[in-house]
């Protein structure tokens, strides 16, 4: 480091120290609750309260994957939430672009409407949603059953609206859509029109423009939108709880409830291990998409 003039040096150091201090304090605040999951998951005799494990063991994790269907839950979660995330990214990429570029009168009302609708907690929507999905599901079943006969059930497991991957993916995606649309709209606002116009001049159709020019350019925004969608859908347990029944389809948050279902005590080791496994993909996704975040919002927020 170069030498800095003394007065400036003193000033800089003082405020840098202040920055270190506040950041450290806030970081501690943010990190402390995680210690419990971390320690308890490796503790052969885990408790609700933080303690240093007497014997370290992988038994809890072993149990998740051998005694319980940990691998299957993880797969289901990743599949459902991943599917919803991809869907959100595709739809929000398209829709956000349209919202950014349209000059139609409904643009602002629409944007505020989808923002404010978020105040409705999912709990308020679950029952009507269930009935609606069931109607769709029965209709689909009525079509599929005559055609596929006994194979209709396995097919419905993938494409059904109730107790099927498709329905859950669609519902999870829809819940994340408003925020994602907002993010993408703001992102596209910051992206010069020149690119798409250049592509238009090059003879690209709307789909080609989006797929070959806009999507690559919008990747940071999509990553941010996808990340938020992923995390929020990943954390959701009410929707999978209500919409899934078959054991083959269970997801991690439902698996987590396993730990409650011992006869007497909650199995904290299992809980912590599951929680840790449950935590990991979200953290990894964050690490992956983090660098896109500020880039995305720096373009969007007006100063």
């Amino acid at each position, binding site marked *: 480091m170069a030498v800095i003039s003394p007065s400036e040096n003193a000033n800089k150091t003082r405020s840098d120290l202040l920055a270190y201090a506040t950041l450290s304090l806030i970081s501690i605040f943010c990190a402390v609750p995680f210690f419990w999951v971390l320690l308890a998951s490796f503790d052969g005799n885990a408790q609700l309260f933080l303690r240093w494990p007497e014997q370290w063991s992988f038994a809890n994790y072993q149990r998740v994957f051998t005694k319980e269907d940990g691998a299957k839950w993880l797969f289901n979660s990743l599949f459902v939430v991943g599917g919803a995330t991809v869907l959100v990214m595709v739809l929000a990429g398209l829709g956000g672009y349209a919202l950014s570029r349209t000059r139609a009168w409904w643009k602002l009302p629409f944007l505020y409407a989808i923002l404010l609708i978020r105040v409705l907690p999912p709990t308020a929507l679950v029952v009507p949603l269930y009935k609606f999905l069931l109607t769709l599901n029965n209709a689909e079943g009525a079509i599929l059953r005559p055609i596929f006969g006994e194979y209709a059930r396995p097919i419905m497991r993938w494409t059904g609206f109730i107790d099927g991957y498709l329905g859950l993916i669609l519902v999870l995606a829809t819940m994340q859509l408003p925020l994602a649309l907002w993010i993408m709209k703001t992102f596209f606002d910051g992206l*010069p029109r*020149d*690119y798409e*116009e*250049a*592509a*238009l*001049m*090059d*003879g*690209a*159709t709307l789909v*080609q423009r989006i797929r*070959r*020019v806009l999507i*690559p*350019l919008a990747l940071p925004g999509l990553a941010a939108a996808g990340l938020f969608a992923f995390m929020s859908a990943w954390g959701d347990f009410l929707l999978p709880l209500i919409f899934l029944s078959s054991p083959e389809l269970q997801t991690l948050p439902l698996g987590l409830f396993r730990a409650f279902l011992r006869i007497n005590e909650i199995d904290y080791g299992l809980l912590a291990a599951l929680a840790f496994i449950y935590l990991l993909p979200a953290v990894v996704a964050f690490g992956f998409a983090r660098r896109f975040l500020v880039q995305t919002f720096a373009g969007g927020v007006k100063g």
Partner: protein
Amino acid sequence: MINLRNVRKFYGALEVIKGVDIIVEDGEFAVFVGPSGCGKSTLLRMIAGLEGIDDGDLILNGKRINDVPPDKRGIAMVFQSYALYPHMTVAENIGFSLSLKKVPEAEIRRQVEAVAEILQLTDYLDRRPAALSGGQRQRVAIGRAIIKKPSLILFDEPLSNLDSALRVQMRAELQRLHRELKATVVYVTHDQVEAMTMADRIVVLNKGVVAQQGAPMTLYHQPDNEFVATFIGSPKMNTIPVLITRPSTGKTHAQSPFGLSLDLPDAGAVVPQGQATLGIRPEHLKIAADGQGDFSAEVFIVERLGVETYMTVGSQEQPIVVRAEGDIALRPGDRVSLTADTSACHLFDSTGRVIRLTQAS
């Protein structure tokens, strides 16, 4: 040949192009100039098909193309920021329009290489735009345009992002390319040096209408109105309010409040008496020996550029710029005598329209 007939454009209730007629011949290098906001870009984008046309006809090679989508018009466009796709290499950028048409890989490669050859980009084909200099980027943008073999290339202020040295270099390059490609070019700029040095034809726009169009030297020597007169030429033409009289000599006499007094050549009866504006370019005022000039004035700014010197004389309210060859060591406060080249004077009426003196007709 491209032909705009009474073309109009509205943004909401605001009319930004107010009935424009322009003809650009095949192979011509036409430049649209005008102050910021006069509608240059809008016009260009209407030709490209990026903006709709609200009224009038746009005719390309005899066909009305108002409703033809951009990619079917056979027109290419180079954007101000070049709009190179940052995620593609130079070769991919240039070949993009072909790959959209599903032209076979090998054929694309061949054509891209041919274009790169012309533009001296062969060594850079595998780079991303971010790793190119400003000049190279511009060439890629041009490559992307010419690979479509367009009959018309549009440029929207392609040099405005560059620093002045690079701009000079690019200007030369663009002219060379125009010669080699023999394509029709429509070029938008608000820099009049660019316009003067490159254009076969200049279209001067002002507030959504065409102020004048023609060859650069025509605009320089015979401006149709005060706007074009002051817009073309740097430093800009001095405009001085004068009183026109026709004394017994029969000549037309122009008299300004601060003592300038000129006989205009051969003007005769075409010039109405009364208030008018006299236009004279800084280069047409010459320093004369003391007392010998048409008028004298105090110098208050001297700008010495070495090879030439600009002097601002007269008063704060009515400054007159004089351009003199060579390095002249005058200082603010000095008085100079000046002669005006009356054969290069212009007269404008109160609406700004030129009053043609005979030599111009």
